[in-house]
Structures are given as C-alpha cells and as structure tokens.
C-alpha cells in the first residue's frame, strides 16, 4: 500500500495492487457526505476485434461492450440495480469508446454497496432469456440516441475521420448489430477483458482503505486471465470523408468538426499529450480567443460552442462542436486559425493566460468525485501517475503545442459532420 500527499492540489491518494493484478485507489474527501466508487475495465466499444489466449480471433458485432454493460447487472440471485435500490445507493454505468465503468454513490451502507459492485462486475450471469429481454430495452436506448441530433453529429464525425478503426461506429451499435448477440459471446468478452488485470477500482469519499482492499480481494477471482490482444485495423493518416451531412428534426444546423491527430507515440505521456491538445484548443477557439469572439460577434457561433481533445486506443483527435447557420465557414476559419498560429507562434502572455485558466479547470474538477475517479481510472489505463498532473503546467513548452499545430495544418485531416434541418435545400 502506498500513500501520496499532493500538497499543491490539496489531495492525497492511497493505492494498492492485489496479487491478481487489480489496481485499487482511494482518494479521501473528508466532510463530503457521499462516497463514490467506480470499477472500470479498459474495454470499450472500439475493442471489437481481439485474440483470445488460445489464439482464437473474435470478431464482435457493434455495440457488444455496451450490451455487456447492461447485462452485467444481472446475477443469479437477482439484478444488482434492485440490490442497490434497497441500500439507498445511486448506481449507474457507462460505456465509452475506450472503457466501461460501473459506479455508485451513497451516503450510507458503503461497504455493502462496494460488495454488490465488485461482486456483480466479476460474476457474469447471462441466459438466453435475459439477453433477449435486454434487446428491447437497448433498442429503445438506440432509438432515443438516433433522435438526438448531437449524437448523430458525434457518431458521424468519427465515421468520417476513420477508415477501419472501430471508433467510427456508434458506441451502442444498431438494432441489427445487437440482434445477433447471444450469451456465449458475452461470456467470451467478459473472459477477455474483465480480468482483474484489466480492472481499476477507485473510491472517493470517506472509507477505510484496508476494508476496501478486503472486499475487493474477496470478490475478485484469485487467478487472473490474460488480457486479449486487440486489433484496430490499418491506420490511415488522412480522413475517410471530409464531409458528412444528415437531415434531422433541427431548427438550425449543428456541427462537429474533427481533426485527425497522430495516435500516442511509443513512450509518450498520455496526460502530457492531453494537456498539450487541450491548450491548443483553447488557443484556437477558446472563449477568450479572437476567433471565437469574431465568430460570435458576426452571428456564426453562439454560447453552445465547445472544443475538446480526445485520446483513444491507436487514435487521437480534436473535436469542435456547436450550432451555426454556416458550419462550413466555422470549419474554414478554424483551419485558417491553425495555419496562423502555426506560422506566427504563441506569445508568452497568451500561453500563460490559457495555462492559468486550464489550471483553474483542473482544480475545479477535484470537487467532483465522479470526474476524479474517471480521470484516475483513465490515467491508470495509460499506465500513468495521476498525481504528477499538476506539475506538467510548469514543464509544458510552446514548441510541443506548435508541433501539433504543424500536424493539424492539413486539409486532408479534417472532417465536417453536420446535421441540417429537414427542409434545408442542401443535400443530406
């Protein structure tokens, strides 16, 4: 067991690795009412094709990680959601392209809840009947997402940027793709990726770390399976489609602009790249950038504009999203701004300003146990130490930002995904 004190950000972290490989972290939050726990596996919707230990190559239908997330709650002695309902905890789960996480928060009965969580995530129980029943529920979830314009723009921007990588497919899959899912496949995925070696347990709030370890040890298997090897298809430096447009029930166009970046290099720090990427976003089009201010002023953008940087297994990209009467103009202006910064460089004043703002965002996220646990899980999947995150602000160099701008300065790396009104004359 290790205990680190991070004086500069006023946090402390306890950590421990079980003999089966499960990594456990505890971040105390004295005076918080609730305690939050997250058990996450480094297995997301992008992990569609993989190789088992016996050499078998498994090709799964789209949406299997998300389907598995729904079905994990089922146990022989009842549904875990119903067990949590009796303790007063608020349970939930999510599947992203990179990970699947199960979590709860509670103000009482923490150890009982932790027992439920660790048990159900490590105990697969799938029957033909309960798998069939879930299809109806997930189909409705997919339909709800189908009607969500933002979700469409988001899914399509990945479909446009990538040629083969499975991140180009919607996280939940489609009614057709999930129709073929059977219990056997779910068991295979569980064996491949729910090994304790591939799991991270993070607790934030008020608890006794030794008791957390004890419960985790009791409920996770003694022997850990090896993690399956994954395949993400052939890489392509450029986007597959530069534009994808769909028509939906929207009053004005909304867009998602993606810039395809190079995946993380060998031995490169994920958190450093993330910080570099986010600072670049701020410089291009943050709330205090000239570009955003000009586009807002002339009515091209409103307050619902956002820029973010995302790392995926074997992929990385920048995303700009918002509403605009003229998404193409936004896309052109962003590209011009990248070229401009790349050519003119970054002034020290500007660099200090965005760094300071970003540091404020980091401090703010420390008040949110759910964000904190997710950040901790993600950095652990990248094999990194979250505690050094705040030190990076002093180390970061403008040259590293300019290097990214150079890479992004290529029209063949940009995809514009837009959702336009049904009555629009433009083709969808």
């Amino acid at each position, binding site marked *: 067991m290790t205990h680190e004190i991070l004086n500069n950000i*006023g946090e402390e972290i306890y950590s421990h690795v079980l003999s089966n490989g499960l990594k456990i972290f505890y971040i105390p*939050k*004295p*005076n918080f*009412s*609730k305690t939050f726990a997250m058990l996450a596996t480094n297995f997301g919707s992008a992990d569609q094709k993989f190789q088992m230990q016996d050499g078998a190559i498994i090709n799964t239908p789209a949406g299997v990680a998300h389907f598995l997330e729904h079905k994990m709650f089922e146990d022989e002695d009842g549904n875990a*959601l*119903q067990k*949590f*309902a*009796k*303790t*007063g905890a*608020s*349970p939930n789960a999510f599947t992203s392209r990179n990970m699947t996480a199960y979590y709860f*928060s*509670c*103000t*009482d009965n923490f150890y009982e809840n932790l027992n439920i969580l660790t048990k159900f995530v490590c105990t697969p129980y799938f029957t033909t009947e309960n798998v069939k*029943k*879930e299809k*109806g*529920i*997930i189909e*409705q*979830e997919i*339909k*709800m997402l*189908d*009607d*969500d*314009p933002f979700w469409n723009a988001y899914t399509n921007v990945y479909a446009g940027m990538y040629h083969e990588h499975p991140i180009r497919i919607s996280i939940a899959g489609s009614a057709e793709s999930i129709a073929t899912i059977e219990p056997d496949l779910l068991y295979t995925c569980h064996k491949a990726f729910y090994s304790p070696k591939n799991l991270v347990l993070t607790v934030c709030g008020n608890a006794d770390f030794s008791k957390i370890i004890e419960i985790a040890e009791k409920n996770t298997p003694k022997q850990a399976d090896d993690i399956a090897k994954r395949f993400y298809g052939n890489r392509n430096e450029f986007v597959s489609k530069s534009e994808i447009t769909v028509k*939906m*029930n*929207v*009053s*004005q166009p909304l867009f998602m602009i993606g810039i395809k970046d190079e995946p993380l290099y060998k031995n490169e720090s994920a958190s450093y790249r993330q910080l570099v990427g986010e600072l670049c976003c701020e410089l291009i089009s*943050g*709330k*205090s950038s*000239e570009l955003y*201010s000009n586009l*807002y*002023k002339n*009515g091209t953008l*409103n*307050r619902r504009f956002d820029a973010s940087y995302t790392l995926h297994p074997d992929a990385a990209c920048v995303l700009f999203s918002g*509403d605009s009467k003229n998404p193409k103009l936004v896309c052109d202006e962003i590209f011009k701004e990248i070229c401009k910064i790349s050519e003119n460089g970054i002034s020290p004043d500007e660099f200090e*300003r*965005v760094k*300071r*703002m970003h*540091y*404020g*965002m980091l*401090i*703010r996220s420390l*008040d949110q*146990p759910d964000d904190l646990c997710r950040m901790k899980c993600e950095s652990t999947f990248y094999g990194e130490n979250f505690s050094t995150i705040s030190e990076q602000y002093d180390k970061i160099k403008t040259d590293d930002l300019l290097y990214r701008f150079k890479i992004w300065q290529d029209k063949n790396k940009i995809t514009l995904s837009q959702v336009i009104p*049904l009555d629009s004359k433009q083709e969808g």
Partner: protein
Amino acid sequence: MQNIFTSQLADGIKLTCLQAKQFKTSVLSVTMTVPLGENNAFAAILPHVLLRGTQTYPNMLSISRKLDTLYGARIIPLVRKAGANLAIGFIADVIDERFAKDNLIEQVIILLSELFNMPATENGLLLGEYVESEKQNLIDRISRLKSEPRSYVVRRMREIMYEGEPFGLCEYGDIEQVNSITPENLTSYLKELINTSPMQIFYCGSIDNETILNQFQSAFSFKNCNKKPAENIILPAPAKPKYITEVMPVSQGKLAMGFRTGIYATDKDYPALMLFSCILGGYTGSRLFRHVREKLSLCYYASSGVDKFTGSITISSGIENKNAELAQKEILSQIYDMKSGNITEQELSDAKINILDALKSMSDNPLTLESFFQSAVMNGFCLSLSDLSKQIQQVSLDDVIQISKFVTLDTVYFMKGGETL
C-alpha cells in the same frame, strides 16, 4: 448538513451563504425575480446582453480574458423558471484563493456588480449591436427547443396542462415578444428591474460569511425593492383529462403525463407526495422501472418527478409508437394500484432510504444547492434540508395512501414518431 447563514441586505434583497470548507471551488449566483408573463423574453435576453460588455470590459473578449486571469472563473447567464416566477441573472464559479494567491472572489463579485449596474452603453442605452445579436440568439434558442425531443415532450405537456396559467409559459418568451425588443425598451426594463425587483444572492464555498457579506455590500449598492414575487395559485385538475397526440419527425415516440395534486413544498403532506412519486418512478427500484422497463421491456427510461412549487407529478418515457397505449395503461394501472392501498412497507422504506440519500448527497454539490435554495427563496419559501429529511422519516404508509387520493390525471401528451408534422 452545512452551516447556513441568511441575511437581508436591503428590502427584498436576500443573501444565502453556505459555508463549506470541503470545496476547492466557490459557487455564487446573483438573480432578480420577475413574475412569469408577457415580459419573459425581455427578462430572458437581459443576462445575455449584459454579459456582452461592461464599461470596464466593453466586449466579450475582454470579459473572457479577465476571467482567464481569474484562473478560469466562469460567469454564466441564468434564466430559471420556478413556480410562477422567473429568476434571471448569473451563476459563477471560481477556485479557492489558496490555490491562486489572489483575491479571486472579490474580483468576481465586482465583475458581477458591473454586469448589472455598469453595462456597456451608448447615449445611455444598451448597445444596439448587442441587443440585436442576442435577439437572434434567443430566437434560435426558442426554435431549438423542438430539436431536443426528450425535454420538449415534457415542456409541451406542461404547456397544454397549464394553458392560461403562468406555469406553462416558456421562460424564453415567444418569437413575437423577442422581435419587439429594442435598446430603448430593454434599457428601461433593466432600470425598472434594478430599482424594483427582488434579488437573491447565493454563495457556497470556504470563505466566511462576514467576508462575503461585506464584499457584496461594497460592490453592489443595494436599493430597497418593493415588488413581491408572484404568488403560486394552484388550480384543481379538470373534470376530464386532456389527451393530445402530435406527430414529430423522429423515430421514437415519447409519452408525458401530468398530474395535479394540490400539494406543494410547504404543505405538511408534501413529504408523503415525494415518497409517492419515488415509489412510482423515482429510482431503479420504482414501479415504473421494474414493470415498464424491466418486466415489459417497453422502454429505456420511464420516470416520475414532483415539481415542488406546483405540486404536479410528471411522468415521461420513450417508447415505440405501437406501445403507447400499452405503456399508458401500465402506468395508470400502477397508479391505480397504489391508490387502492397496495403499497408495501418494504416499498415505503426503500423509497425513504433513497430520498434521504439523495437529500444528504445534495450537500456535496454546490450547483444543486444553489438551485434548491434560490428557487425556494425567490418564491418566498423557507426550506430546510434537515427538516425535510426528518419529515420524510416520519411519513407512514397510511400517509402515502391518503395523499394518493389527490393525485389526479390532468394531461396525457404523446409525441408520435412519424414522417411529417
């Protein structure tokens, strides 16, 4: 529970401070209360126009850059409906000074005061350019409401349910009202509000009450405000429920049902109503979750919630068109079953644990606390989380069954997925 401090800074100006040393970020809000009505568009546009520029920071860029230097402090326009009233103003958050070595809170408070009291003007009027551009943004926002089906069905159901009552009005007004806004009439509206409308100020964070009180007092020159918030006048449900179906070009149908109860936040029966709604559809152990979702696989979500100011219960769910009647029947039969007295002690105690956990959890989230306290204060309610928790604990099975008699169906709205409007 936190240490709550309240103070009257002038007539109608109320400050609520929650001291919470556990947070690294402070949350503040300053809002004015106006009655919901024909001026909604004027009220809703104001914070957006004011956030375009002040006399010291004349445009968005200079405000944003100032906020960057305050370690990414955020000031966000706030337009919130609660009961028969509308709160407009700003919500802000800023990191603690122990991570920044600067008087961040004080600077944010001064900036908030400038936004209200020293907006950028020309010949004494709000700038035409800002007013025009925010008019367009507001029109876009109103038009966009329909593009978010899940929230739109609930909004549309309430509009039908509360036809002729203020609760059903859109907080952004309508496009016609927006078009009638000019720099002249908006400037006089602002002046009128500053001079007459009640104001609520909220702070949650680690700084002591005295300091916050003094900083607000010195940044704002508060005047006595004589206007009172609008009263919530609750009408009974109609003799026959309204059934409305509309077609929207979406793939999934959505159902929203509204019930009147006549019981609202300050009633002694309100905790029993909260429990009724929780047992029905408030969490994953509820009847709607277990029956409509898990047993019948009809939907991904089906839930129920109470509005504390109007005492109405809203149920919403996303379903296939063909299942609309089946889902409605199942929901009504669960309610009928509960009204017939078939609620178990186990259901009641599970629901109690869930509500108590949710109430206790609120103290970890300053934004939730802000909305809870400010909505209450603006409606003249005095709510206490710990009193509410105590009352919840005391509710008996009989209490829930008794109040279930008052749950009366008012409106059933179904948004049918389809091709055309």
